[in-house]
């Protein structure tokens, strides 16, 4: 466990040195600027729009971090041969993979936490300056705890994306890993359509293929509850727990697959 934590710490340090936290600053500036503009252009709807925008921005910035760091986590080490000295130390290839994953997830959580705090500050400011009659018209309070459910599920979704990027990074180039990960992220949001493919095409082979892909590809649509929480709609706790459990299983499978691939690799 200590070894995994050491590798994770090194990943976090590298992300800090590579100025990844700058994304948080960019996020805060974007959100504050957008809030100002939106409050000038809309009447009454500005809070909902800010909530939508804030949650979407957290998700997009997180996605950028997950993909662009994730794809280089292993392949960069192999290409630059830094893995040679590291793997001669007392750590297994499995610990290396788990440490890399844990490090990037920690980086993500720190970044997303900071973005969430910036988001909360903007919402608190809007709450403070809003007139009582405007506030009365809001379907949900500005600092609605349901927003945290949205952020939590975004973190879980990005943990799956990170595991995907890491998996591809164990055997392919950074560019191919980025394309595959982004492709699967897009496909993951339309995965539900594959389940009901027979409604579109009545060819048994294609239907079975679509059904197989449905189970193989990540199902990311349930992680997107941004519209619901922005509008103050409750997300059932059972659904949230089921989605988190799905994420845990999918991530575990991807990590096992990543370790299996990486264990067999020759480093020429």
């Amino acid at each position, binding site marked *: 466990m200590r*070894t995994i934590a*050491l590798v994770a*710490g*090194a990943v976090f*340090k*590298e992300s800090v*040195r*590579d100025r990844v936290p700058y994304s948080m600053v960019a996020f805060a500036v974007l959100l504050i600027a957008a809030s100002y503009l939106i409050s000038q252009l809309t009447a009454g709807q500005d809070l909902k729009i800010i909530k939508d925008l804030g949650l979407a921005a957290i998700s997009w910035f997180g996605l950028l971090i997950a993909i662009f760091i994730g794809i280089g986590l292993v392949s960069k080490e192999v290409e*630059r*041969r*830094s*893995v*040679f*000295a*590291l*793997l*001669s*130390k*007392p*750590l*297994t290839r499995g610990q290396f993979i788990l440490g890399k994953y844990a490090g990037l997830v920690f980086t993500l959580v720190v970044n997303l936490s900071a973005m969430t705090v910036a988001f909360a500050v903007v919402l608190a400011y809007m709450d403070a300056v809003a007139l009582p009659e405007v506030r009365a018209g809001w379907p949900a309070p500005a600092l609605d705890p349901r927003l945290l459910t949205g952020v939590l599920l975004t973190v879980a979704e990005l943990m799956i994306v990170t595991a995907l990027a890491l998996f591809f990074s164990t055997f392919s180039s950074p560019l191919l890993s980025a394309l595959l990960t982004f492709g699967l992220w897009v496909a993951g949001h339309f995965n539900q359509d594959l389940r009901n493919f027979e409604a579109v095409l009545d060819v048994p082979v294609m239907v079975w293929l679509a059904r197989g892909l449905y189970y193989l590809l990540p199902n990311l649509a349930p992680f997107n509850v941004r519209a619901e929480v922005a509008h103050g709609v409750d997300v059932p706790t059972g659904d949230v727990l089921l989605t988190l459990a799905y994420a845990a299983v999918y991530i575990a499978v991807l990590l096992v697959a990543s370790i299996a691939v990486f264990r*067999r690799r*020759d*480093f*020429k």
Partner: protein
Amino acid sequence: MPAIEIEELSKDFLTGFWRPRPYRALDRLTLSVDEGEVFGFLGPNGAGKSTTLKLLMQLLYPTSGSARILGRPVGDLAVKQRIGFLPENPYFYDHLTAEELLTYFARLFGLRGAEVAARVGRVLDDVGLGAERRLRLRQYSKGMIQRVGLAQALLNEPDVVFLDEPMSGLDPLGRRHVRQLMLRLRDRGATVFFSSHILSDAESLCSRVGILAQGRLVASGRLSEILAFELRGWDVVVAHLSDELRARLAAHARTITALSHGRYTIELPPEASPEAFLRELADGGAQVVSLNPLRETLEDYFVQSVGAATARETGL
């Protein structure tokens, strides 16, 4: 107990995209290195030296055969705890300083607290990087990176050290420093297994060598066993050699070759008497600059054995 045991170790790589074919990089290598030995693993580029080292570090998996370090299979965590490895042309995280990198590695070895800083400081001083410890590695020269590589290989005070081309990228001073480091390791009782194509390093450091060519071990043993060390002649450098004396000496010299500044190098057969020859030179008014016996060197042996292996392979 041998420190390193390699048995019938082979490695094939697949080459070609459409119809991959196996290319044998290492062919049934069998070798044993005793504890406390400095073993030189020699061979031209592409002979399979780095492949062997990567197999020993389990960075590559063998096609067949096996290897053990300190009596345990390679890749065993208990083995990794007791070995050091310097890869060829090493690369390390360049966003870190040397001190940060070594601290990270020291913790992977299980060192904690004040021991980490003390050990890191000591090895950085040992490799001559004490003053640059807080510079980011991206600001380091190639030679400095090589020193960092040596430092990380010595961090855990290893019982067996594997060095892949340790002199690569170093200036003459750096090479001397590394030679001294290796001798200190030997004096401490550590086993040193190093690959090189610089034969003078092997001659001055090794108790035994193995010579690899085209993936095969063509010779292995003590330098005194490999090299006959028998006298092959004499090399005399002289100045102020008159034409008349040169003509007279030509009768019993193998070759007389003109050098710069009016000097000549004269090669005599082994049966020649150097004393009589020196007298003759003095009587003829020549001045002796140097006199050296010619013996077989590792380089001669290397050229012969590698050349023979190449000829066998190519059928020339």
